[in-house]
């Protein structure tokens, strides 16, 4: 080992001696920056409080039972509700879920068990990229795929668009949840001679059910707030009323399938679509209704979000406690 001369050692020691003087400055910088990040965090979350409080304030002023049970009144008239949009939101969201969930679960099962194959990587990477595709592009795609072929806008087209939007979310959460289930569980069932499909459906998916349901509900919550993919798929329809369709169908002695077909083949409105249209109209009544629609939509989405998260956390902590 090279021996350093005493004078060189001293020069380093003296340098350290002097650097000690900046200790206070370093500590103050530390304090300031740590507090500053806290301030930035509250700045990031400030809009949440601001938006929620305004939507509750403005929407709450208008909200009444009529708003949920009445159809819209003609422009310029007071009163009326958004029953058509509430029904439409339910129809579109359920349709999106029904279309997306089965293939999403299967794709997730593939990705979870074949994470190293080319297709497995393609699924994981593809879902990530797909979730970043602008929703308006999905709207364009479904327009070309469904609307153009059918020749008219429809609830079905809107449902397919929403399905494409939530598909990646469900695949990714399901895949993560399947991966979290212990391998031994699966091996135990396979060792008993159960075929793979039975094992996956009755053991793996059941064990991962909590997480999967959470993923689906969060996906549906997102779908129910989407507007852009519906602009040229579901389009909007102020005369849409399921009750009327069903009663006229029954009166005409149509079968269940025919009635369902009439429900799905018409253009349909949804809460966000209605909100968007009303907000841009120069009638104060419509703008108030727009705030009310925002409140309903926000409650729906926030409740879904908070409830599923709390539920999942409870289930998880109970499982861990065991």
């Amino acid at each position, binding site marked *: 080992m090279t021996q350093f001369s005493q004078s060189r050692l001293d020069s*380093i020691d003296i340098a350290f001696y002097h650097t000690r003087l900046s200790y206070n400055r370093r500590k103050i910088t530390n304090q300031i920056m740590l507090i500053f990040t806290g301030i930035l965090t509250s700045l990031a979350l400030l809009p949440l409080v601001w938006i929620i409080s305004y939507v509750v304030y403005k929407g709450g002023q208008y909200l009444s039972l009529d708003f949920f049970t009445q159809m819209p009144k003609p422009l310029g008239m007071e009163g009326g509700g958004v029953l058509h949009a509430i029904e439409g939101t339910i129809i579109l969201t359920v349709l999106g879920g029904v279309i997306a969930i089965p293939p999403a679960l299967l794709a997730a099962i593939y990705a979870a068990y074949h994470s190293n194959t080319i297709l497995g990587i393609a699924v994981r990477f593809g879902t990530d990229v797909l979730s970043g595709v602008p929703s308006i592009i999905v709207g364009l795609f479904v327009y070309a795929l469904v609307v153009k072929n059918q020749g008219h806008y429809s609830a079905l087209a809107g449902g397919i668009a929403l399905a494409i939007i939530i598909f990646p979310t469900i695949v990714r959460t399901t895949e993560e949840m399947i991966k979290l289930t212990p391998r031994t569980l699966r091996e135990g069932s396979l060792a008993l001679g159960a075929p793979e499909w039975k094992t996956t459906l009755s053991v793996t998916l059941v064990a991962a059910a909590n997480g999967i349901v959470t993923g689906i509900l969060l996906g549906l919550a997102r779908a129910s707030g989407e507007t852009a993919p519906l602009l040229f798929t579901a389009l909007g329809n102020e005369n849409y009323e399921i009750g009327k369709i069903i009663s006229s169908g029954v009166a005409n002695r149509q079968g269940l399938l025919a009635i369902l077909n009439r429900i799905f083949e018409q253009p349909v409105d949804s809460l966000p679509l209605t909100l968007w249209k009303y907000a841009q109209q120069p009638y104060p009544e419509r703008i108030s209704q727009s705030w009310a629609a925002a409140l309903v939509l926000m409650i729906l989405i926030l409740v879904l979000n908070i409830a599923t998260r709390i539920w999942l956390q409870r289930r998880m902590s109970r499982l861990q406690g065991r």
Partner: protein
Amino acid sequence: MDMFLDTFLLDFQNRNSHHNFPSLIDYSVTETAEEDKTKKVSFLVPASQIDSFTPSPQDTKYKASILNFSLFYGKFQALRNISMDIMANKITAIIGPSGCGKSTLLRSLNRMNDLVPNIRIQGQILLEGENIYAPGVDIVGVRRRVGMVFQRPNPFPKSIYDNIAYGPRLYGMRRRALLDEIVERSLQQAALWDEVKDKLHHSGMALSGGQQQRLCIARALAVQPEMILMDEPASALDPVATLKIEELMQSLKSEYTIVIVTHNMQQAARVSDYTAFMMIDNPQNRTGVLVEYGPTAQVFTNPQNKQTEDYVTGRFG
């Protein structure tokens, strides 16, 4: 030497009931701890230089003293009533079965345990006579005085040069010439200079495991600590790299006080001057206690405690 050891052992055996041994603990540099100047001097003068003036073994200092130290994670008590002195310019090994709290004790010496939430301590740890757990103590300063080398090499994903210059730069050193000198000296002290002097600006991550660990030692040396804690520094290394680290420790002890945690008894026997044996007091509460502490030769050849004997002879559990 023998005379000293006897004194030490007497001292050690009395430790559980008494904690003040002014005759042995040299408080001279910290009597006026509040005065900045004294403090600075105390950490500026490497212990080696003090020793070189007074080579007699009786004057060997306690670098640090752990006094009746207990540590809790929430309700769980990890350490109970540990008292031991760490001798300056010696290598002290802490051995014991896994889960006995030896790493926890080591990490208490530079307050790395503060990172764990819900931690609570009782007792004191004196570094050069100053309680590092006293309120208002500058934790950053403590860590700077007590360096640490971890179980797995953890170089930053920066160049070798920047890894070593990281510490000095924190303290405000910007002069290139000075940094060059520190980097070179630290690498030489860590016996790594010859291997890396031509690739100082390559990534530290590109080195082999053993080299990475020596880089981490060099990085710790660069801030001129007084004491270096090593938490199983060779556990992730192959035998050749392990040997290098052990040789390095021997060459470093003239300037630094070293405390090493190891679960490798041969290693403790080979490298250390003093050995502390820790164990859990009972399997239910799993609290770590200090069973025996003394010169390494004695702990391994003539242990005073039955449990120690069982452990060092391999009859343990």
